[in-house]
């Protein structure tokens, strides 16, 4: 178990900067996730940590050891690949035993450890199968067992659940989380699925175009996005452009042509000034039809443009002149189109961000 530190790591492929001066540290035993759209550099970052790519600039440390130039086979990381990379010419047992054989363990020791880890991932009894004879979920567990059995310093997971169907994915991510907490192994996870990232991680780094946009605990990056990219990438939201009218302590007022919105700035580092253009970020689930203390909430009245039944709630779009709000309401509330409704959203839930 180690702390993983990246210092100004940059990786280019030709002219494309895949990873752009990334600095961060991943704590011992932490479940850390790189989250971002495809092509944002998250997988490359993981491969740089594994040693499968070497950075053009910057350094990588495992605790205090500089591993930047260490070849992958000397880093002792355990990686699970997106396509699992199971060797089709070896059985499940042989796949899992491979890393132990390389490390020169005795036959009996290998047998003991492989069976232990297969039990851990609930694959006992399938040792002699070939990968092609397994389901997607089972293949995924073999890949995990193969990475875990060598007791790596760091566990690296590259979108390990993306090839599973939706139901299995949800089951597996819970299992993975439990396993990680049990083994207390430093784990670095890569995914483009924001829900997965929120559920599974201790901390998340949101990436875009090779840069880290924000690092924080799941509720922090979700509730307090520090920039427009994070705000719009995590969950859906209504983005309203306007101008800063007033700043009173934490409370900021944004005006548009026809409405005023009060909200807060998520971080003290973010500089805003009265009179400058800015955005308000409103998450649909933060709206309510009634509210205990209307003095601490924005109130909007508009006409219903469309509604749609999602299951746990109804989603609708409310139009206020040239502004349109996406709002989640209780499933029983189903107003006719073109009718007028009134919704509230507390000031503290509205995020104000400067125009970039």
């Amino acid at each position, binding site marked *: 178990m180690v702390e993983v530190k990246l210092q100004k790591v940059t990786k280019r492929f030709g002219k494309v900067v895949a990873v752009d001066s990334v600095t961060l540290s991943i704590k011992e035993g932490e479940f850390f996730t790189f989250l971002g759209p495809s092509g944002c550099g998250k997988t490359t970052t993981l491969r740089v940590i594994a040693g*499968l790519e070497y950075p053009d600039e910057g350094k990588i440390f495992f605790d205090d050891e500089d591993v930047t130039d260490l070849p992958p086979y000397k880093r002792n990381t355990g990686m699970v690949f997106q396509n699992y990379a199971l060797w089709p010419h070896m059985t499940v047992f042989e796949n899992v035993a491979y890393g132990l054989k390389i490390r020169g363990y005795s036959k009996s020791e290998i047998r003991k450890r492989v069976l232990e880890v297969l039990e851990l991932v609930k694959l006992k009894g399938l040792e002699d199968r070939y990968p092609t004879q397994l389901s997607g979920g089972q293949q995924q567990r073999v890949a995990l067992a193969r990475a875990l059995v060598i007791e790596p310093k760091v566990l690296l997971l590259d979108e390990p659940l993306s090839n599973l169907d939706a139901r299995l994915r949800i089951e597996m991510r819970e299992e993975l989380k439990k396993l990680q907490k049990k083994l207390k192994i430093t784990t670095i996870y890569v995914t483009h699925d924001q829900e997965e990232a929120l559920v599974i991680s201790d901390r998340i780094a949101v990436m875009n175009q090779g840069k880290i946009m924000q690092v924080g605990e799941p509720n922090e990056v979700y509730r307090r996005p520090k920039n427009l990219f994070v705000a719009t990438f995590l969950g859906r939201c209504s983005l309203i452009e306007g101008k800063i009218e007033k700043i009173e302590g934490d409370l900021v007022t944004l005006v548009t042509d026809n409405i005023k919105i009060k909200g807060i700035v998520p971080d003290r580092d973010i500089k805003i000034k009265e009179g400058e253009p800015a955005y308000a970020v409103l998450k649909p689930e933060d709206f309510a039809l009634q509210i205990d203390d209307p003095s601490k909430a924005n109130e909007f009245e508009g006409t219903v443009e469309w509604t749609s039944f999602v299951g746990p709630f109804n989603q609708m779009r409310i139009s206020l002149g040239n502004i349109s709000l996406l709002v989640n309401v209780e499933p029983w509330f189903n107003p006719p189109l073109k009718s007028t409704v009134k919704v509230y959203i507390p000031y503290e839930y509205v995020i104000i961000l400067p125009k970039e």
Partner: protein
Amino acid sequence: MSKLLKELKRELDSLTIVQLSIVVLILGVFLVLPVSFMILRAFFYKGSLSLYYFQSLLSSGTFIKIPPELRWIELAETPYGKILIIGRRGPNFGILLNSLFVSTMVMIFAGIIGTTAAFIMARYDFPGKNVFKVLLLIPMLATPFVNAFVLGKVLSVDGLFNYLMCDVLHALPFRIWITGLPALILIQTLSLYPIVYLNAFSSFINIDPTLEEQAENLGARGLKLFLTITLPLALPGISAGAALVFIFSMEDLGAPIGLSGAFGGGLHEKILSFQIYDEFRRGIGSIEQVHASTYAMAVIMLLVAIVVFLAIKKYVSLRSYAMLSKGGRWKPRVRRLGIMGLIPVYIFLITLAISASFPQIGVVILAFTNWAISGVLPTKFTTEYISALVTNREVARAITNSLIYSSIATAIMLLVGTSAAYIVARKKIPGRDLIDTLSTLPIAIPGIIVAVGYLLFFATYFSQTPFDPFFNPGLLLIFSYSVRRLPFSARTVFAGLQQVHESLEEAAMNLGASRAKVFFTIALPLIISNVISGGILSFVYSMNEVSTSITLSNLNPSQGPITFYMSQVIYASAAVGTVSVAAALGVLLIIAQITAISISNYILKQRVAFLGV
């Protein structure tokens, strides 16, 4: 700079260094140096660099004939009566232009025939299709020299064709005799069209059917659909095949030597490959007797071949010649033919199959009957010639030589081919593209040029050593096979590596395996079927190698392989009856080839679908 060195150090692990050394050593000593040495020789006149030989060649009048002789058809009175003679006096443009003319015509005809046949086989369903699938590939079975003898038996003035047409059916008012360049074009077209056919076929079935369906959906059909969608999509494959045909036609020695054997001298000898070969045959005693302008001729031929090769390589990657098509992953568009379609299709395919496979069929007949001495038709079945393969000491020695050379060459080829393919597929080192080019280039280097290069280089620098061509041509043949047939093993292995997802190897590295360990425990087991199949094909292609075999073996006939023995029989017109023994050898080669191709196909089809691919 230090960053580059660091990167290089990282990439050059012990495995890569070993693999790289093998590739550089073998390709360097047995390809680059001999050929470069020969090229250099052509530019030296009286001790200094000069274009003298090139100038004298180009102005000699035999090299480029001005004005060209264009009369290519004549009606002559002979003891056989009236004969329509095609190609005796002309066309004749001079040696250089004759070669280019023949290769271009062969490329065009083989292109049209191959593409047409491929389209029919890929897109239509009709009774007997599977039979034609086999028949159309028969010309691929090499039976060097003997097939030309068959040609003489069939197409000569008193041959089978004229016998049937004039004496039996009375369908023609006069006999026909084809010789010279038209005969070359005819023979080479019929033996080389399968290369285009195979390429075009795999291109056609690899076209995603939805692409054509979309075009139909938008209103295109028939010829319009073919010309705007199908043909452009298949064109890279077809062009690659056509370019290979051009190169193979230009370097071919089998057809001109065979025609000389069948009809005696003539314009079919006035081409580059034959002239170079002939000049060197004269220089057997000592290399000094070879006129230096021959080297200039070889350089020009090499230049044309390499330019064509690099141009087409740039246009399409040349992976199809390894005969590994990915096969249709989708249901291909196949239509049943109606009666109005069946008639032309059958006429085309039957004519093609009969005319293209008669040399091979004839070789088999020659081997099992007294046809060689019986006149127009064979009269007696015999196993005398087949048994000669074992009983005739000279023949048995040729077979043994071939087997030994080909086995060792195959081992070397696999070592070099696998190393080169692995470096090209997996390493990011400078010079990788050069290795890629060098390992595929031999397909474009005429064998006669390799032979000439060996003769010059090894006789000059390795005299009185085991590599002395006058003393030990067998050893050099092993290396010439290794280099000349390298593209087959290198490309087959490369194709296998492309199917192995790199993450399979990265996973092993991640678990602590060094590069070498990864190669031997992961990569090699996964591509072993490709290695074996590439090895089998390489072995057979070594067995029927012609150009270097017949040139170098002249220096010490006791070390000659099968093809050398066959050439001696046909070209030297040795004792009566030996032709039939050569035919028996041809049958042996045919059997070896069919076996090898079947095994190789079987192995590659049995491969499990790899995960993550």
